C-alpha cells in the first residue's frame, strides 16, 4: 500500500533527524557548575593600607559611617558593535559618586579582558562555567572601614562578572548595607541579586539601580537624573 510505505519513510526520516539532533544535544550538554558561593574568610585580602587615593568626604548616609562605591566596568567594544571609552557601569558609578561622595574604587583585573567583544563573552562564559576567580590588579580597599557599599557591575551571562565575584569572595560584607547597581542589555538584574544574597546572606541589601547599557550611553544626562531620583528615594 502506498500510504503505508510513505508512512514508513516519514517515520524513518523523523527518526534519523531525531537521532542526529540528540547526538548534537549530548555533545553540547555540559555539566553545570556547582554554585558554592560566599566570602572565603571573614576578613581577608588586602586590609590596612589598601584605602584608595581619594579621601573620604562622605556626607551623612542612611547606613551611617563611610560610603564606598565599588564597580567594575569594561571599556572598548560593546554590544551592538558600539565602542565606549568609559564603560556604562562606570558612568553610573560616577553619577553616584557625584551625589553621595564617599570613596570610589574601580575593580581592575590583573589580566585585562580582551578588547574584542566576542572573545570577552567567550572568556567570561568559561570563567563562569569553571568557577574561575580572576585576580584583581593593585591594592584593594579595606571594606571594614565602611558601613555602606555601593556595588556596581555589568551583567555578564546573567550575573556578576567573575572578576566582581573575586572581589565579593575577598570581602565579607555581611552586616553592612549593600546597594547594587548594574547595566545590562536585556537581562535586567538577571541572577545577580540571588548571587549577591548567596555571598552575603546577612547583608542589608537595598533597592538597586538597573538600566540598559546602551540607554545609559545614549542619554547620560537623563541617566544622571534617574540616578539622583533613585538615590533620593534611598535617602541620599
Amino acid at each position, binding site marked *: 500500500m502506498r500510504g503505508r510505505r510513505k508512512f514508513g519513510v*516519514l517515520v524513518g526520516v523523523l527518526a534519523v533527524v531525531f537521532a542526529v539532533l540528540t547526538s*548534537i544535544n549530548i555533545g*553540547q550538554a555540559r555539566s*553545570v557548575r556547582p*554554585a558554592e558561593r560566599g566570602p572565603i574568610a571573614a576578613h581577608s585580602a588586602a586590609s590596612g593600607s589598601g584605602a584608595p587615593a581619594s579621601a573620604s568626604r562622605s556626607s551623612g548616609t542612611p547606613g551611617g559611617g563611610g560610603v564606598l562605591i565599588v564597580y567594575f566596568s569594561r571599556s572598548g567594544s560593546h554590544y551592538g558593535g558600539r565602542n565606549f571609552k568609559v564603560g556604562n557601569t562606570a558612568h553610573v558609578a560616577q553619577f553616584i559618586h557625584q551625589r553621595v561622595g564617599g570613596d570610589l574604587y574601580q575593580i581592575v583585573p590583573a589580566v585585562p579582558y580582551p578588547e574584542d567583544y566576542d572573545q570577552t563573552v567567550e572568556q567570561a562564559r568559561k570563567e563562569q562555567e569553571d568557577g574561575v576567580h580572576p585576580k584583581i590588579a593593585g591594592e584593594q580597599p579595606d571594606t571594614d572601614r565602611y558601613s555602606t557599599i555601593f556595588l556596581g557591575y555589568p*551583567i555578564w551571562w546573567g550575573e556578576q562578572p567573575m572578576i566582581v565575584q573575586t572581589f565579593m569572595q575577598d570581602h565579607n560584607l555581611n552586616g553592612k548595607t549593600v546597594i547594587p547597581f548594574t547595566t545590562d542589555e*536585556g537581562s535586567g538584574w*538577571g541572577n545577580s541579586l540571588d548571587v549577591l544574597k548567596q555571598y552575603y546572606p546577612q547583608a542589608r541589601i537595598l533597592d538597586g539601580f538597573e538600566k540598559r547599557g546602551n540607554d545609559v550611553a545614549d542619554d547620560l544626562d537623563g541617566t544622571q537624573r534617574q540616578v539622583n531620583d533613585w538615590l533620593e528615594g534611598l535617602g541620599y
Partner: protein
Amino acid sequence: MTRSLLFYAAALLFPLPLVAILNTQLTDAARVRMVISLGLIAYCWWLAAILLSVRPTWLDRWVGLPQIYALHGSLGIAALVVAYLHIDNNYAHNMLARDVGNWAFYLSLGVAAYSILFMSGWLADRLLLVARIKRGLERLLDHRIAVWLHRLNLVAVALIAVHVHLIVQINRHLVFMIAFDLVTLAVLGVYAWKKWIAPDSFLTGTVRENRALNASTRQVAIALDEPSSRIRPGDFFFLRFETDGIPRERHPFSLTGDDQGLATFTIRQIGDFTRAVPQVPVGTRSRLEGPFGRFDGILKETPAQIPLVFIGMGAGVAPLLSLAAGYAGDRAITLLWSVHRDDDAYYRSLIEDFENANPDRFDAHIQVGRFTRDRLAALLSAEQIGKAQFVVVGPAQAVLAAQRHLRRLGVSHRRIHHERLTM
C-alpha cells in the same frame, strides 16, 4: 460553549509540559526563567497553530472549522506578542543565535501581517478597502503563491529550533533538549503526514456531471467510489480534481444534496480555480477531504418542535438545500433565498418541489436583492423570531449583515448559525 473553552484552554496550555521541563532544569532567577519561557511559549503556540492547520475532521465536528481557523490565527498573533516580549527583555551572547531568532521573528511578523489581510476574513470581510486590495492582489498573485508564502511560517519555526540549539545556557540541558526536539518533530511529522500520507485515505470519486446552472454557476456531481456514512446534510468538502485543466488545489464546497454516494456541489465561478471548473470533463477523478460541518450536529440537538429558518445568499443556498433534503418533512422549515438577478434563482423548481412535497412544513421565499431588516421582519413570524434556529450562509459581508439584522430583530446570537463563503 464549554467545548470552545476546553478547546481554547488545550491550545493555551500546549506549551506547559515543555515550559515545566525547562524550568526544572534551569537554575536561574525567576525573571530570567520567565523571559526564556516566553520564547518557549511563543514557539509552542506556533507549533499548536501548525497542528490546527491540519484541520482534523473530528475536531471540526467538535468545534467547527471557523473556530479552528480563528484559534490558528489568534495563536499565531499571540505568539508574536509573546516573542516580542522575549526578545525585548533578553540578551543573546551568541550573535548568531540572536540573529537567527530575530529572522524568525521578522519572518513570522511579515507572514502574519500578510495573512491577516489576505487569508483571514478578519479584515477583508469587514473593510471594503481591504477587500478591494485583496481582490486586486489575488489577480496578481496565484493562490498557490499565497499558500507558499504562508508556509514560510514553517521556515520560521525551523529557524527558532536552530536558535534554541545555538544557545549554550539552554542546549546544555539534555532532558529539555530531547523533549524539545521530540515535540518539534512530532508536530512537523503530523504536518508531513497530513500533506503526503493522509490524502491517500481521502474519499475518492469520479465526476459524473458538470453542467452550467447559469452564466456564472455550475453544478458538479461526483459519484463516490464507496458511499460514505459520515456524510451529513449541510456538510462541505475540500475538493480537488485530478486533471490538468484546473489547478491541483483543494477548495471548499458545500454539498447541495444529502446523498451519501453522490456528492453534488454548486460552484460559483469567481476565482482562478472555480473559473476553470468548466474544463473538468466528466470522468475526471477527484479527491474529497472531509466531510466537514457542524450544521447537522446542531440541528440534531434541536428539539423537533423548534422551527428552522434557513437564510441563503447566492450560492450559499447549497448547504441549506442539503439540510432541507435531510430535514424536510420532519421539521418546520422556512427557506429564504436572496439572489442577485432573476436568472440566479437556478434552484427555483427544486425548492418548489420541497414546498409541494411538504405543503404545511416547508415554505420558501426567493427574492432578488438583499434582505433588509424590514424585509426580514415582514417574512418572519413572532414565533420564529422568538424560538427558531437560524442557519445563515452566503458571502461573508452578506452573512454579517443578515446576522446584524436578526439580532436587531431580537434573535439571540446563540440561535444564529452561519457559514461564510470566504476563499
